[in-house]
């Protein structure tokens, strides 16, 4: 019995770890897509964040500078995306694709040139990685039966980025639904002409949204390379940016459901690692690949309206051209 409880707790713990970059990236997508800018470049921005965070942390030994560098890289690419699709009315999907391919090439190229380690950064020492903190009282509570170990497993060692991600969720819920900026942001994704008529700059709002996207994707990448991992390795995002996009759609571009979708996908992944090679009753061993493909299949089914309807922000994907 106690074993089962421990197993579930460890599952939840690893789900939180997997969910953190997903949540950050999905909320990054939430801001820009709510503002009417489609971003399939989440993957590339995350990868850039991961690389520049690790490279800087490795060069300076300071993880906070690393985080700052990752965020800067994310914002720089977000502004590039904005320059292409807000200023020049370019195709948003093409721009996102270009960023993904560019970074997939640029990160290992720079890593190769700077560190000569075959496209990686050196392994970071503990001091160059973002710290994990213990919640107050985890040590003291350890002696309390049941609650103590539970508390210790879940809150004994929490990366600061996990806490940041939790804060991002709470702040986003407030900002998007309770502030003037949030209201305008949502409006510009639905009806930019109306926002423009009200005398608010569509361009400015969309750029602001993209900066938030850049910050959050940079953080998501930094988590992978200098908090969860200890250095940058080639293609370390491994499709997480697209998975975050799937979670965003699965969450129907809303704060709560998007969070739940991220947690669900992460939980599926954690369960999948546990279940590898384990025969289940009735169905037997399910091939790993099927479980890994589940979020993508679910998203396809959802988009097809078989599991409810996912309606994107109405103006998303369309450049706004002011009438003259």
């Amino acid at each position, binding site marked *: 019995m106690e074993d089962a409880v421990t197993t579930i707790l460890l599952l939840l713990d690893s789900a939180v770890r997997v969910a953190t970059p997903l949540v950050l990236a999905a909320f990054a997508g939430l801001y820009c897509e709510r503002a009417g800018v489609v971003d399939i470049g989440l993957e590339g921005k995350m990868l850039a964040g991961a690389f520049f965070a690790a490279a800087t942390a490795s060069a300076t030994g300071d993880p906070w500078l690393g985080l700052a560098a990752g965020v800067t890289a994310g914002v720089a690419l977000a502004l590039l995306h904005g320059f*292409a699709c807000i200023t020049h009315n370019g*195709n948003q*999907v093409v721009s996102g694709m*270009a960023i993904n391919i560019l970074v997939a*090439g*640029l990160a290992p190229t720079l890593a*190769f040139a700077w560190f000569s380690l075959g496209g990686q950064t050196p392994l970071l020492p503990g001091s160059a990685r973002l710290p994990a903190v213990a919640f107050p009282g985890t040590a003291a509570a350890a002696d309390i039966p049941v609650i103590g170990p539970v508390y210790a497993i879940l809150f004994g060692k929490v990366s600061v980025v996990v806490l940041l991600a939790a804060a991002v969720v709470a702040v986003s819920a407030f900002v998007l639904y309770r502030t003037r900026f949030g209201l305008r942001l949502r409006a510009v994704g639905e009806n930019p002409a109306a926002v423009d008529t009200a005398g608010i700059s569509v361009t400015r709002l969309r750029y602001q949204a993209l900066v938030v996207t850049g910050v959050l994707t940079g953080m998501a990448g930094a988590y992978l390379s200098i908090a969860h991992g200890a250095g940058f390795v080639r293609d370390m995002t491994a499709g997480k940016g697209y998975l975050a996009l799937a979670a965003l759609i699965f969450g129907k571009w809303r704060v709560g459901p998007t969070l739940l979708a991220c947690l669900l996908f992460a939980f599926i992944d954690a369960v999948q690692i546990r279940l590898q090679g384990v025969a289940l009753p009735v169905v037997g061993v399910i091939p790993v690949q099927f479980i890994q493909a589940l979020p993508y299949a679910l998203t396809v089914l959802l988009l097809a309206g078989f599991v409810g309807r996912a309606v994107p922000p109405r103006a998303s994907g369309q450049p706004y051209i002011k009438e003259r």
Partner: protein
Amino acid sequence: MTSESHVAPGGLPPWADYALLPLLNLVAALAVSALVILAIGENPLAVMTVMVGEALGYPEAIGYTLYYATGYIFTGLAVAVAFHAGLFNIGGEGQAYLGGLGAGLVALAVPGWPWWAAALAATGAAALFGAAWAWVPGWLQARRGSHIVITTIMFNFLAAALMTWLLVDVLIKPGQQSPESREFDPGVWLPTMDRVLGWFGVTVAPSPLNLSFLWALACCGLVYLFLWHTRWGYGLRVVGRNERAAVYAGISPARAVMLAMALSGALAGFCGVNDILGVQHRLLLNVTNGVGFVGIAVALMGRNHPAGIMLAALLFGVLAQGGGQVSFDFPRLNRELVMVIQGLVILFAGALEHLFRPQVAALFRRRGEG
């Protein structure tokens, strides 16, 4: 999604639109690439010289370049056909993968057939598998209102999962560790071009370039005829331009969307013939290696016209072959530099395609007045 271009006022002559602007965008992309190379600490001019030399300088290199170009022609055409119907097919990667599966299954199933019969059957199977993998997202968009960009991305992941499962658990050669099928019977391998030309007494250096290159050229012609000289091609373009007008003209947008996606997938699927039947001679993981994404760049550079696509595919073939070789000559550079250049070309030729339009238009206006 809006894919139509916003034509700036003060229209340009066609040659400026179709040749000058893409050329300017290409130059801009190469200039930024040069800056990247400079930042790394190598001489961009020397790098580019080596790149071109290693891609076009000697017969074997040309064979490799054309081999890469073959795949890019297929995926470039695939993206273009979908684009003419107003669809952005990001799923070339998955469709090429599935096309390879189709070709491979046929090749495994027909030992003892003459190569040309096997090639016909495998090409048909590649088209069928690729078309099926693209038709589903097309159907989902036409009938269920889902978004083609997102579904095709998801289908790339599903294709990767499916292929990994098939190769790890089903098609793996018995008693072997690495996930690949057994090798095809040598009789059904698609002849390489050096072999074909050898039959006619012409000797060329051996390379992976194979007969599917000719099929790629033929597909350029067929796609041109289809798009601009058939009723279906016309319908497809009308739907891409203006869906409502298409409905008034009695054209069914849903049907055009599904047709465009099926054709697009079939074209991408032919990559499988080039790679699996022509070169690898067995099914294995990750053969596509980004060919679907390069197809986007090729279509954008080539302005979605088969003639332009041929030229753009050649350019990207040079990049793939020459760029891969550059890492041997310059210790600070590696293969991935190619992706940097590809990404920049997509950025400048696609997302920033109107970057230089106002300046060029102003230039033409001034000359017109002066």
